[in-house]
Structure formats: C-alpha cells, structure tokens
C-alpha cells in the first residue's frame, strides 16, 4: 500500500538518502584516513626514520650470506708460524694438523689457491703475498714491532682494501685476507652447510650417499648413525631432544590444562553450578589466570622450578586453564537439556548423567578447541623456551646471541617452521578423525 502512497515528502526522503550517503562516504573515506593517520603517528612514534641509520646493512649481509654458505679459515699464527685450517674457524671443524683441503698446499711455503687466479702465498718469516687478477700483487710483512708493512701496486687503494698500520683487510669475491701483527688469515667462502652430516674426524666425511648406503648394509649402520647423531658441529641429538622438549611442553600444557579446566568449567557454568558465589569465584579465577599472561607465569614459575620444560609446560597449563575454563563453561551452558533428561529418566546417577548426557555433547567443541590450542601452544612453547631456557627456543636464542652461527639459526628456523606445520597438520588430522568418528560412533 505504502509504495503507492503519493503524499510522501520527497525532500524529506532526499534528506534521509543524503544523510545515508554522507555517512557511508564518511565511513568509506574517514576510516582509511584514520588508519593512515594512526600509521603515520606510529611511524614517527617508533622513530622509523632514525631506524634507517641504526640499521646495519653489514650485519644483514653477513646474516644472509652466512645462513646459506660457510667459510674455511686458513690461519697462520705469526708468532709461532703454525698454520691451521678450520671450517668456520671452529675447533670442532678443524682439519687434523698438517692436513687440509686440496686447495691448500701446506709446506715451507703454503699456497692457498682461491681459484680464478686469486692466489695467497704464506712465505718465510711471516711474509704473505696476495695475487689479485686485474689489480696486481699485494704483499705484507708483519713484524712484532713495525706493523704489517703492506705493499700495494701503484695507484689509489680500491675500497675493498682497508689498510692501517696494524691491520690489512682485503675482501675479494674469491675470498678474504686479513693480516694483523699476530695472525694472517684467509677466508674462502663455499655454498652450503658444511659438515652437516659428518664432522672431519669421522671416517665417513666426504663419502657419497651411494657408498654410504653400501657401508650401512655392510654392517656399519650403527657407526654411521652414531657419527651423524653425535655430530659436534650441528648437534643433531641435542636438536632432536630440544624439539621433543618443545612439543612435550605444548602437549603437557594443553592436555593438563584441559584436565584441570573441565571440572572447574562445571562449577562456572550457569546451568550446572547452582551456587552463585562459587560460579562467580571460579569465573574470576579463570579471568585471572588468563589475564596474568603466560610471560608472567613463566617468570614466577621459573623462580620456583628453575629453567626447563616443566616450567614451560606449567606456564602453558596455567594460562590455558583460564582460556579452556571460559570456553568449556560456555559450551556447557549451551548444552541441550533433553539428552540429560533422557539419561536421568533411565535412573542414571549424577555422575552417569554427566558422563552420558553432557560429555558426549561437548566432546566435539572440547576436542576441536584442544587440538587448535595444541598447535598454537607449540609456538608459545618455542617462545617460552626462549625466555625460561628449554627446548628449541633456547637453542635458537643461543645461536642468535653468538652472532656468528647464522647457518644454525637458519637450520633451527626451518625446523621450527616444520615442527609447527607438522603439529598443525597432525591436530587437523586428529580433529577430523576424532570428531567425525564421534558422530558416526554414537
């Protein structure tokens, strides 16, 4: 009827439409503008322009290049004249005395062949020469009192050479030479993670996978495994333990929280808990557990139990008891009473009423939340591990703090990502399996 009414005031309608349009326009342009204003504020509040100066591109470069490559150090101690070759300059990666890779010719005059014509020669009396194609020969004669005494070809020094009285540093794409009074060192960079499987002291270092398979079948599988497992450079055993610890923290924390939270949730649910004060108190306990963050629980618990996986799992347990308690009690409040009535009509006792009338109804909610949290807690466990000390989080922070083992950092990051994705996949699979199985089963 009203659509045919002719006594409508068009100007009023127009006003209303205009008003609506204005509001929409305000929303459409105002909201993005507001977001933009906020981001600009944050830009200056966080001092992003100043950050550009503080950021060190050198560090970024080392980090990136070190994460996928390694360097071999050829070092001469200028006091004793001893020459050592070590991967990453670490003792656990060093070649036995008097041996080296094929590109280092040890002898009275040691020649380090960096290929493409780059040639470093360690001569007698600490003398060192570096043949650089396209530039010429650089020599240095470090002495205890007189500095390094570098000699360059004629002309200005290029910017990849830095030289002072006591230090010479030449960086080329083939390798790097540093000379100080105490030591002369050549670095050669290689692609990959060296010694990932076997360290140099293992007889299996450098063995091809095919040969290794043959040896394994010939009865050396145990020795091969132990050499790999106890690799001092990459510490596969410790890493595997650390990952297990992290997963353990997540599992213990999540399931423990569910076990603690379920009975408490009954006390907090409106339809099961008849005493108002009890309900109120339990709810505030949940709020408190959730509000005091996992971070603070971690700090408090670490004081009592010391660092380790137990502290981490208890911190997760406490925080998640609050979260689960809230979720479960909400699920309990949405339970259908008919099923409970049906069960009690058969003469079931209260405990049986809960077991057969309530639990089957909330199981899907409970399980899906539980498994969802399991995945997210794997990440939390990594973070908590980094704070309290435990699991892969600790190994990661340690590797970052040393600021040189970036290949290990990269390795741990890959492992963490794989671990979380695995837990994600496993919890999704279980969820599908358990919850759909529940529907068909009952």
């Amino acid at each position: 009827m009203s659509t045919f009414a002719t006594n409508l005031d068009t100007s009023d309608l127009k006003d209303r439409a205009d008003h609506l349009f204005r509001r929409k326009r305000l929303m459409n342009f105002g909201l993005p503008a507001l977001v933009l204003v906020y981001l600009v504020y944050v830009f200056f509040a966080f001092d992003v322009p100043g950050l550009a100066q503080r950021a060190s591109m050198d560090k970024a470069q080392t980090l990136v290049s070190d994460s996928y490559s390694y360097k071999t150090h050829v070092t001469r101690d200028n006091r004793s004249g001893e020459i050592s070759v070590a991967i990453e300059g670490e003792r656990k990666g060093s070649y036995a005395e008097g041996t080296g890779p094929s590109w280092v010719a040890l002898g009275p005059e040691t020649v380090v062949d960096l290929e493409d014509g780059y040639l470093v020669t360690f001569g007698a009396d600490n003398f060192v020469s570096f043949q650089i194609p396209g530039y010429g020969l650089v020599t240095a004669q470090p002495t205890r009192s007189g500095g390094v005494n570098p000699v360059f070809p004629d002309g200005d020094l290029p910017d990849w050479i830095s030289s002072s009285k006591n230090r010479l540093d030449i960086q080329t794409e083939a390798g790097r030479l540093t000379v100080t009074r105490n030591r002369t060192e050549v670095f050669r960079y290689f692609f990959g993670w060296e010694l990932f499987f076997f360290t140099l002291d293992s007889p299996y270092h450098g063995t091809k996978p095919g040969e290794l398979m043959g040896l394994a079948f010939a009865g050396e599988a145990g020795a091969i495994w132990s050499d790999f497992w106890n690799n001092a450079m990459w510490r596969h055993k410790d890493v595997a333990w650390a990952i297990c610890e992290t997963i353990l923290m997540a599992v213990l924390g999540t399931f423990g929280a569910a076990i603690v939270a379920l009975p408490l949730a009954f006390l907090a649910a409106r339809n099961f808990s008849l005493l108002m004060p009890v309900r109120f108190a339990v709810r505030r306990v949940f709020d408190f557990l959730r509000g005091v963050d996992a971070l603070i629980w971690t700090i408090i618990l670490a004081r009592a139990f010391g660092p380790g996986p137990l502290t981490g799992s208890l911190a997760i347990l406490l925080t998640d008891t609050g979260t689960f308690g809230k979720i479960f009690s909400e699920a309990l409040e949405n339970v259908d009473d008919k099923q409970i009535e049906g069960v009690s009509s058969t003469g079931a006792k209260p405990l049986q009423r809960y077991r057969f009338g309530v639990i089957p109804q909330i199981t899907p909610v409970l399980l899906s939340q539980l498994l969802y949290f399991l995945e997210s807690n794997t990440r939390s466990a990594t973070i908590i591990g980094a704070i309290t000390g435990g699991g892969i989080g600790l190994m990661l922070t340690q590797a970052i703090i040393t600021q040189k083992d970036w290949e290990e950092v990269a390795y741990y990051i890959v492992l963490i990502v794989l671990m979380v994705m695995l837990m994600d996949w496993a919890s999704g699979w279980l969820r599908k399996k358990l919850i759909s199985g529940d529907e068909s089963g009952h």
Partner: protein
Amino acid sequence: MADTTAGPGPDARVNTIQADYMAMAQRRRLYSFVMLFIFVALMAAGFRTADARNAGGFFDGLHRIFDYPKEVLGEAAQNLTALPGYFVQYLPSLVETLNIAAASTLIGLLGGTLLSLLSTRGLAPWPALIPVFRRFMDICRAIPEIVIALVLIFVLGGGPVPAMIAIAIHTSGALGKLFSEVNENVSLKPVEGLASVGATWAQRMYLGVIPQVGPNYVSYALLRFEINIRASAILGFVGAGGIGYELKNTISWGQGRYDQATAIFLLLFLTIVVVDQLSGVLRDRLTHGTSA
C-alpha cells in the same frame, strides 16, 4: 517343529542380540579404557621426562611457588604509596606496547586481507597462484614471532619496529587463513555486478567483497589484537622495547625494584583484562548485529 522352534526362537534371538550388544559395548568400553590408560601413562611419562630435564624438580619447587610472589608483593606493600608514581612512569612504555600491538594488527589486517583475497577461489586474480599464496600464509603463520623479532633485532637494533614487523608477519598469516574461510561464503553477485561495469580487481574487492565481510574481519582482528598485546609484551622481554623490556629490567635488577615490577605487572594485567572485555563486547555486537 514350527511350534518348538518358534517358542524359544525370539527369546533366544533376543538373548543373542543382547549378548552381542553387551559384548560389543564391553569391547568398546575396554578400548576406551585402554586408550584412556595409554593417555594417562603418556601424560605421566611426559611429566616425568619434563621433570627430569628441568633444572629444579616439581616437588622440590612446589612449596616455593609462592615465595617469589610473596617477596615481590611484600616489597610492593611497603612502598604502596609509590605505586601511582610508577604507573605514571611506565605509562609511556605501556603505550608503546599497545602501539606495537595495534600497528601490527592493522598491518596484519591489511596483509591478511590481501593474502586471503589472493587465495580464495572465485576472487583471486591469478587462480593458478592460489596454492602458492596458501603455502606462504602457512609459513607466515608457522613462524613464531620471537624468531623474526630476534633476527630483526640483530639487524635493526632493539626497539619497537622489529617486534611490530614480527607480529605483523605472523598476524597476516593467521588472519589470512581465517579471512579466506570467511571469503568462501561471500556472495559473488556484487562482484559480478561491479565487473560488468568495468571495475578493476581492486575496486571489485573493495566495493564488492569488503562490505560483506567487514564485520567478520574486524571481529577477528579484535581477537588478534588481544593476542598481539600479549605477544608484544613478551617480545619486549627479549629486547623489543615496550613494557616487557621495562619488566625484564626491573626483574633482573632483583630486590629493591620489586615495587616497580609489581606496578608493571599490574599495568599489564589491567590492560589485558580491560582490552579483553572491551573487545569481547565489541565482537559480540559485530557478530550478533548492531540491532541486537
């Protein structure tokens, strides 16, 4: 013959059925019981392993659990009058933590929106790349914030920016996944309508899709904001500024600054509770409609 078999027949059949049912029920119960037993055994074994690998044992530490809070609160109780002053003193770092959380949620919201639109069938401009974007989101989601934060702190130096970037990356992945589930249910009619008048992809998305999914997006983003406040507090603890950093400083100082630690505890606790409540109310209004 017929009589004799018909007489006990149904009874016997009922009996066998009942016996079968009971046997099945019993086996089922047995399986459940075995599963429960295995679960309990695994939990116990896990607990024991964790206990063994911990620096201090569970039962040794249990009675000490309240020592530290008592010590801290005791010192705070003595200096009760100083607390309001500390609240004011640490307010800027609290604001910084909130800013980290808010900025990273906003950036994550934008990133997640883009990623989800790129990886939803029917909306994606390059359908062939959907799996690529999905995997990318998975990886963003799987990396814990602390990993990116620690690496960025090394490169960029301490401060709020590494934390913001780290949380934003994680948030993009997490929100992207949730958003793409929302996008699946979008009506394509407005999008087709816009396409018919020659709208570009960005226009189609902004005018055709976003208005449909906006409330859901905002609701998820608010939930994420709650999580991100906690995350930014934690990242402060490893050197990324904000209240977490102050907390770490006061705590590692030990006795003498516990009153300040308490003030920070309280600030953080109150902030988390207040934001949880506020965003809970807001989310309720968004999901149940403004009319309700």
